């Protein structure tokens, strides 16, 4: 038994439209959050688009397909899921409008829509890179001041706060941004590499500790690692000491051999332990980190011999310590892995105790731990998700630096010189310039939503197009700047063979700044900064500078990925012509 459901553009549109209505509540820093209760009864708060969509347990096959696309996109950039839905919805709407006017039947319009979508994807593959290099990158600035990837706190803060602001309440977002910057800067210990981002991203689950019940303002970044357990035997160590990692019990039955109950077996086991003690003493091991529970006699020995012990440590934590220690780690034949810890402390916070060890700052990273406090576990979880997302996003932004394998003299020296860098010292407010002809101006006369109107006489200024390539780790101010620039480029230049599809995309792109602007009381900030940019790059004064230090930024490469992902999703949706609902009967 099958039920056939014809899918035309309208059907896809209604599905995406429904999703869009949910998303619109949570977009941007002024959107709200969603409270989600699990089937197990736990509550969870979120503002991340991908999580909201997943939580909905979508039923319609088309909706599930959209969710799949959103998840794929999220894995790549950890950003833009809400914009994804909004952009997709507007794009489908435009396609529907265009195709409906010409054709009568559903099948006809479907074919036309499909053709348009294919054209768009092809455009994104062939031309989009060039378009961005010509018209978006000249306005962008690099996140990094120098070639090696050293990042200043101010620049990092703008990037992270741009990300966090859309995902947490205002007060919390500010605090979390500061914490993440602290974590990153302390972990890099001033070195100019991007490896710490990879390290933080891959090990974040071990680099944070959650404390429910305190207000979020009490969170902080601590030196060293906080283990998930408390010391079984606690001896405070201020100076570097050696630590032994154990993966099995040191007691008599540790090795799994059967106990032989002949005369004196117990004494013999005791004797074997004595030998181990002597070896430990000779190696000057004063800390035992064990993944399993140790017998009482081991603890007693430790108590008497000034040795700290922590039991039941997560093995991955030990691996991390081993990995960070690098040069300070040795392997002993009989005992196992031995590392040096710089201090042993007991961290007492919020009624819980944790073992806290310090590690030598090894080459690229200096291990630090983020201590996150919040009144409820749900809020804590939200903060953790935001942190993880922010780190994924950072990693994505820094990918070009990681890929750079060219020798130093070839790495686009000219580009680096001309790369505009975020200026942190200037704090002046944005300069107003309404007289600029080339700048898009707001048209309030038609309706309340901001509509951008272009004066026709000025072509876009292709600044820096000859500089040899796009800016490394380029960033733009948040709030639809990227979409406006791309819209501008697409609607003014003509690309052979893609005229209609470009116009469609250009119109659809405007929906993003429009949505963000809806909540904003001060609409003027956006075009103002844009015209400011224009003026400076036209003059060629060596780079655009963001005048206001409050402007948050977002990555251009994430945004580009977003456009590509949306176009691909649209094609996938439009390729479906029918849904077959098969009724499966289960045999008992």
């Amino acid at each position: 038994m099958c039920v056939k459901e014809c899918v035309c553009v309208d059907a896809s549109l209604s599905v995406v439209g429904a999703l869009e209505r949910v998303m619109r509540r949570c977009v941007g820093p002024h959107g709200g959050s969603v409270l989600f209760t699990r089937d197990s009864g736990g509550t969870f708060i979120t503002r991340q688009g991908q999580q909201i969509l997943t939580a909905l347990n979508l039923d319609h096959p088309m909706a599930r397909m959209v969710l799949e696309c959103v998840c794929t996109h999220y894995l790549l950039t950890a950003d833009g899921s809400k914009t994804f839905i909004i952009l997709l919805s507007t794009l489908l709407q435009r396609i529907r409008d265009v195709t409906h006017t010409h054709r009568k039947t559903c099948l006809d319009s479907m074919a036309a829509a499909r053709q348009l979508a294919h054209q768009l994807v092809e455009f994104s593959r062939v031309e989009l890179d060039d378009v961005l290099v010509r018209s978006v990158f000249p306005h962008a600035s690099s996140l990094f001041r120098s070639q090696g990837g050293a990042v200043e706190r101010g620049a990092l803060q703008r990037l992270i706060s741009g990300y966090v602001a859309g995902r947490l309440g205002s007060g919390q977002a500010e605090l979390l941004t500061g914490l993440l910057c602290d974590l990153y800067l302390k972990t890099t210990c001033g070195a100019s590499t991007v490896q710490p981002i990879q390290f933080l991203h891959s090990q974040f689950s071990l680099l944070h500790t959650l404390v429910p019940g305190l207000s979020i303002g009490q969170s902080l970044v601590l030196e060293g690692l906080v283990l998930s357990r408390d010391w079984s035997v606690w001896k405070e160590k201020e100076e570097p000491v050696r630590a032994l990692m154990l993966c099995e019990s040191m007691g008599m039955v540790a090795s799994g051999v059967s106990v032989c109950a002949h005369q004196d077996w117990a004494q013999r086991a005791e004797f074997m332990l004595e030998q181990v003690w002597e070896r430990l003493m000779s190696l000057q091991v004063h800390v035992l980190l064990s993944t399993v529970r140790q017998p009482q006699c081991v603890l007693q020995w430790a108590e008497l011999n000034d040795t700290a012990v922590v039991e039941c440590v997560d093995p991955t934590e030990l691996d991390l310590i081993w990995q960070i220690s690098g040069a300070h780690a040795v392997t002993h034949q009989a005992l196992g892995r031995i590392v040096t810890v710089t201090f042993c402390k007991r961290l007492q916070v919020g009624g819980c105790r944790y073992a806290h060890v310090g590690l030598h700052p090894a080459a690229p990273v200096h291990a630090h731990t983020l201590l996150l406090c919040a009144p409820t576990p749900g809020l804590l979880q939200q903060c953790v998700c935001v942190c993880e997302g922010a780190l994924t996003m950072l990693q994505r932004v820094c990918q070009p630096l990681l890929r750079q394998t060219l020798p130093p003299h070839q790495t686009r020296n000219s580009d680096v010189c001309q790369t505009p860098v975020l200026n942190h010292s200037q704090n002046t407010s944005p300069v107003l310039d309404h007289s600029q002809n080339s700048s898009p101006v707001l048209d309030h006369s038609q309706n309340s939503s901001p509509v951008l109107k272009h004066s026709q006489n000025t072509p876009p200024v292709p600044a820096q197009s000859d500089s040899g390539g796009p800016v490394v780790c380029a960033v733009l101010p948040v709030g639809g700047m990227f979409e406006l620039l791309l819209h501008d480029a697409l609607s003014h230049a003509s690309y052979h063979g893609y005229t209609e599809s470009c116009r469609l995309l250009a119109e659809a792109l405007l929906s993003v700044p429009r949505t963000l602007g809806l909540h904003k009381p001060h609409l003027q900030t956006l075009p103002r900064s844009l015209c400011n940019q224009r003026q400076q790059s036209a003059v060629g004064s060596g780079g655009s500078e963001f005048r206001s230090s409050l402007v948050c930024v977002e990555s251009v490469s994430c945004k580009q990925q977003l456009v590509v992902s949306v176009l691909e999703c649209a094609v996938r949706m439009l390729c479906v012509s029918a849904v077959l609902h098969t009724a499966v009967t289960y045999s008992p």
Partner: protein
Amino acid sequence: MSRLCKKKPSVFTDDPLANSQVCQKLTLLGRIVSSSYGPHGGLKQVHNNVGGHVVTTSTSSVLLKEIQVSEPLLKLITTAILNHTERFSECGLFAAILCLGLINNAKRLDLRTSVAIKVYNHLLEACNRYLSEDKCICKVQIEFSSCQLLVTLAQTVITSKPACMLTSKEAQYVSSLVVQSFLRSVPCDSPGKVCFGRTVILSIEGESVEDSAVFPGLLVEMPEMLRSAELERYGPGLYKLVLFSTSLAGDLSEIGEATIEIHAGVNPEGMVLDQLLKLGEQTVRDEVSVFACQKVIHPVLQQYLREHGVVVIERLGRALMEPVCQLTGAQEVASLYSPVPPEAYGQIRGLCVRRCGSRELLHLLPSGDQAVSTMLLCHRNETVLDELKVVCKKAEHVLRLTLKDPWALLGGGCTETLLAAYIRHTSQGTHPDVLSAMGISRSELLLGVDAFCRSLESVALSLRQHGQDCLIDLSHAHNWLSHLDTQGSGPVSCGCGLIEIKSDMNWTPLNTGYDPFLPAPITNSTSQPRVLDSFSAKVNALNVAVEIANLILDVKCIIRDVN
């Protein structure tokens, strides 16, 4: 495969705060918490519909744990408050009332949520700044040279929990006991690192409250075979004690999962018993007087030890091990195969028997000034005793918090009215730059300020009894309660008891508006406050309440997984 079923789509609720059902539930929770607040709060009896344990309480930590809420928004509030009370023991109801007030007032005044959140955050910062300043007039410095303020602090905690069923005399007695045990737990001039002592609470049902007491040292169950006459020879003097954490029952339980091969002619039980007796011999040789074990001791060993005049204490339990170590300086011995090292022995100053009602307890006296004490709590029945135990723990925790922040806040609603008056006054002159940074207009700010201050004042209002009026004086901004019996006559004294009544004072009812003024500090007053609240607990409660209120105001929809 037949078990596999499709997941149902989630249920989507839009704008939950506009939903009348949710609002009703919020109001109900508000009524429950505000009616339980303070010394005159009503008790709540909680029982489920299939019978079972009945709980009578007005303490937030017990009450909120017992009420099962299904509404996700309410669950968010209750878990946040339970987490707070777990950390700080106190001010849970304060946080709940404030949080619900903030949500309610934002809705009542029709504030946009983003505006309300911004203003609340801004005002919270202002409050935190003011409370941490030295010139803040809501707080009193705790001086440890006199214990008057400490007793007041403990007494406020105890009297604010009416479910303890204490008369005022009893409350005073219990608070003095709490302060006593707290002072005992602070070590005197011990060299090196200072380690906090501990108080073990023992409860005995059916005796009067006046029989409660605090003893230095530890009280443990009287061993069955011990006669009190045998203890007479343990007068003042130093006695050795050995403490085992491993089982001395003669079994091979420590071996765990491993297989045992037994050679012919070998008797493992006999071997272990021999080993036990060797231990016994060693302890007798080392002149040990008390032989204690966390777990069970083999009867033969017990018999042997008793014959040699050693007092045997078995089945101490894990909870008492650390206090015994701390009291005696002994180290837990974990192995019976090696001789007990000499440094593992501990010392006590003597043993005696304490009788309380029908129970006999063995008292281990400390050899020095170890900060270990036992608090014996007595009350008439189980329900009130449970509550009293919880309350005493809370009171001691509150006292400990003063060591970190040696401050206390004025109680009786005075801190709330003072803070509200201060916030009203200072936000009058908010700089336009601050407003533009927040992106709100002045009128929106003033609305937000009104919502915030009214919420604070609603906490003070919850303190009144039925038929009473809450008043605020227009010079110091303290909270005053009117006479209960005689209608219309003026108040007697302010909530915290710091100000006496004067002829030139003006009052206005708290829930009506008043012109903003800066609360004046109290000069040349000799009176001490009668009601004090914990500083750390209240500041954290304030922060938690505002954060949770903001979180809830921010929720635009609820997605409920119904699988």
